């Protein structure tokens, strides 16, 4: 759905559902996942339908994911960090299980 403009640049590694994905330093979690072809950021609490970012500027809340164990984080407003743990959010957010919880 998306491809990089220009030559590849220095990349960080972020983990999405425990799998390593590449990220541009300074980009948001949302753009990192789109860069890697992710189209299912979360499933809705009502019907379980898949969703991905719609507005990319913090209004639509469709990009909600779990970041470092904390649910319902706006991926489009969160900047990536090396080694960051990101996970699909299934339905409503679950209670925080600690920064380095064992899945």
């Amino acid at each position, binding site marked *: *759905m*998306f*491809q*990089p*403009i*220009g*030559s590849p*640049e220095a990349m960080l590694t972020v983990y999405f559902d425990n799998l390593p994905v590449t990220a*541009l330093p*300074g*980009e*948001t979690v949302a*753009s*990192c996942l*789109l*860069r890697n072809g992710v*189209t*299912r*950021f979360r499933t*809705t609490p*009502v*019907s379980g*339908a*898949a*969703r*991905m*970012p*719609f*507005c*990319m*500027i*913090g*209004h*639509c*809340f*469709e990009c*909600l994911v779990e970041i470092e164990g*904390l649910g*319902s984080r706006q991926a*489009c*407003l969160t*900047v990536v960090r090396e080694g960051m743990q990101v996970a699909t959010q299934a339905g409503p957010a679950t209670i*925080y299980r600690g920064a380095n919880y064992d899945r």
Partner: protein
Amino acid sequence: MTAEPRPDPSAAGTGAMPRDADVIVIGAGPAGMSAAVELSAAGLSVIVLDMNASPGGQIYRAVEANLNEGASHGLANALGAAYSAGQPLVAQFRVQSNIDYRPNTVVWELRTDGTVGWQQAGRGGYLRARHVVLANGAMERPMPFPGWTLPGVMTAGAVQTLIKASRLKPSGRVVLAGTGPLLFLLADQLLKLAVRPALIARTDGLGDKLAALPRLRPAALPALAKGAGWMANLRRVGVRTVTSLTHLEAVGNERLREVVIKAAGKTMRLPCDLLIVHDGIIPSIDLAQGAGIAMEWRPDDASWRPVTDAHGLAKPVSGPSLSPGPNCVWLTGDARTIGGADAAAAHGMHVGQTIAASLGAVKSRHASHSSPAKRYAQAMAARPFIDAAFPPGRWSVELGDATIICRCEEITAAQIRSCAQQGVTDMDQLRGLLRCGMGPCQGRSCATAIARLLSREFDSPLPMPFRGRPPVRPVPLGVLAQLQSLDPDLSRSEALDDKPDASSRGGIDV
């Protein structure tokens, strides 16, 4: 200079809490940056809170990074002169020493007494100032259609954000649909990035342009010329364009597979990987509404806007106020009235000068050659033509019963109509019954469409938006538990043993 926080007994509402700055500016787009620069140049202390990682707002997003090191990407060329024009203002903003700029900061509460609730990287609290300038910009007008929640459907602004901030461009079969200058600007930018849309389906047509002609003023001629240039380029490259779009549908299961388009009476289906929609932009009213600022419905623009005077001073709703004392919130830029970057920068400058004058601060720099109020009026003179040339297209098309209106809670037009037919006329009542507007987005995506459904059912003036209450954005419990600068008069800690004895009242013993 009033950089030292000090209590100001003349202003009620903040009690004995010290002020953190003379002015807090919310948003670092053209309006917020201009206001902050003016205030700082007058010797006032300014805190600027912004959700993004770097100054520029959405229009000049990541302009420093893209212009400083981006020459090899061809991005500056693709984004055009209107984007590069933001660099001087960002540079001016960066050099002001009195500006305490706090990026990646989300504001979740605003009060008319000058209190602002913020959170950043797992911390949060309150800040207080003598004045607050709300410059939180605009959002794209949500225009529901069947399948608009499918992955693969995004707004034009979202795609622009990916281009500017992440150097990503669309790939595969791309379709653009809707109306407004941004749709055509994006199409032009895509061509420059070697992305060729399969189709552009427009709701606006020649009739709208002819109807807009009487509103054409000399000030609109540059915009008109720019638009004509985009169109000519699209035609030259041979991008297929259809007008008078009346029906749009995204089809797919886990993600978008094809789009169905009905334009000028003809229906077509085409395979599609990315459907980019845009239907104009409207003020972002979340914080103003949460602060209790009055809202005015603009039927021609199908949107609400906060009520302000010409200087931008907000007018709170009549009746009991949410916070005591006089209002000290000002609105500027697209958050006040859609006018684009030049109008926003001029008005922000005007608000900054007005506040500085009211605080008795004198600007140390030489005065600019033309007054910001005059520059604002010039920039706005083009708007009546642009607004008439790009009316909110599918707004007048009936919403299908099965179309999801509230994306968060997946509530359909049929459910809302059914409530309306049972006599629900009020948005808040509807929210209580259906949960629309109670999801994470807090009604940002559904409010205008619900207003439209209710008004159709009752053939009445449009209702007021959902009542907004802080926090207007979710705050993690861990942040709430450790809020900084709480007002001691308004907060207290209670230990568990302070609780009334539940068993003595026949409650459940825990």
